[in-house]
């Protein structure tokens, strides 16, 4: 193997980009190195030495791979909100298909049906929050030529949480459909099946895509420029910075609103019957805020007396 081919093999093994991008990058670098070596040969250098010099002038494979991975990661980061949005929209579509199978019924839902539906809605609330968080950071760096590793890490984490929550919601809703079908035999089983299948399969695909996006958060590039995006695309980040600066007020506001919503929509005939659902929603919102808040950058944590 020549010096150039050996360099290219090493570079290729360090690239975390799609197969097509890797082939194009390696071909581009190969042409550059060959031209460089041939020019040196034309000036009297020996081929082996010319190739060694060309490779040395190009830069180490570690440096090059890190920069290429960072550039590719910035592009992949901008695809992440699209993955979350399309997955979410298709899951909603599946839910709507299944919803037509539910005839208007006066029968009271059973406890397992109520619990599965309640948990599914909670999962979707997490999905919307995480999806919006990731989209907000991605939009904030939309027009920059690169995005810092920390930004890419946040978008990746948010997208994975969003799609995992969508999958949980889809499975819980499908369970609810199965329970409902057993409870009310006059439901349209085919529509229920199509809806449940669409939701679950789409959510699995969305999660798999989110996990395999080459966002490369660990690869940073020192050569990035500092062009800022427009203020309109910064609206999400501005809102989130308000939330993270006032976590108690934000959490309280969201908890009150979510509790009121849960109690209004609970399949209960009076306030007392709706109260457990409201309390459950409040506990879930606060718990989620405590657990996922730091991961999504919605609140800061204190470690060894320092803010993290």
């Amino acid at each position, binding site marked *: 193997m020549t010096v150039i081919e050996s360099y290219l093999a090493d570079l290729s093994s360090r690239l975390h980009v799609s197969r097509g991008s890797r082939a194009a990058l390696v071909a581009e670098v190969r042409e550059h190195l*060959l031209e460089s070596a041939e020019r040196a040969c034309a000036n009297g250098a020996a081929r082996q030495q010319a190739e060694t010099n060309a490779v040395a002038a190009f830069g180490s494979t570690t440096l090059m791979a890190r920069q*290429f991975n960072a550039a590719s990661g910035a592009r992949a980061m901008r695809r992440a909100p699209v993955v979350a949005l399309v997955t979410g929209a298709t899951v909603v579509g599946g839910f709507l298909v299944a919803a037509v199978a539910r005839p208007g019924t006066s029968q009271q839902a059973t406890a397992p049906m109520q619990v599965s539906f309640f948990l599914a809605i909670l999962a979707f609330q997490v999905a919307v929050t995480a999806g919006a968080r990731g989209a907000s950071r991605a939009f904030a760096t939309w027009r920059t030529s690169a995005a810092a590793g920390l930004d890419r890490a946040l978008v990746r984490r948010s997208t994975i949480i969003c799609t995992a929550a969508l999958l949980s919601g889809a499975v819980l809703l499908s369970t609810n459909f199965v329970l409902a079908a057993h409870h009310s035999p006059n439901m349209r089983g085919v529509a229920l099946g199509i809806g449940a299948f669409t939701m679950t399969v789409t959510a699995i695909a969305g999660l798999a895509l989110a996990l395999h996006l080459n966002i490369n958060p660990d690869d940073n590039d020192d*050569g990035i*420029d500092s062009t800022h995006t427009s203020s309109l695309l910064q609206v999400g980040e501005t809102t989130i910075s308000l939330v993270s600066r006032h976590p108690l007020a934000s959490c309280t506001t969201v908890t009150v609103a979510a509790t009121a919503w849960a109690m209004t929509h609970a399949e209960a005939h009076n306030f007392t019957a709706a109260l457990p659902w409201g309390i459950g929603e409040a506990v879930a919102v606060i718990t989620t805020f405590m657990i996922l808040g730091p991961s999504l950058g919605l609140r800061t944590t204190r470690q060894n007396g320092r803010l993290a």
Partner: protein
Amino acid sequence: MSGQQLKGHLDTLVMGILESGPAHGYAIIDSLRVASGGVFDLPEGTVYPALHRLEASRRVTSSNQVVDGRQRRVYRLSAAGRRSLLQGRASWSQFSTAVTHILNVSPT
């Protein structure tokens, strides 16, 4: 000049080179070296991630062409790139004026 000193300016410099016409990576590196009088002595490969970043942000476009018998990826400045270059020039002018002003003042 090291890569560290060029941090944040490489994209603008590459756009500056492309303003005079489309070019492939090797030619851009050559132009950077010649235009800087040999001052910018970066690892040659550094320009490719910069080109890919610029392409991702739609400031340059690229196409595969045969140049001097070689299949090359040729980059060209887009309209968005021209606007960005204008901003980069203005920003650099402001920055360099400030630095020059500070460094030219003798300590008392």
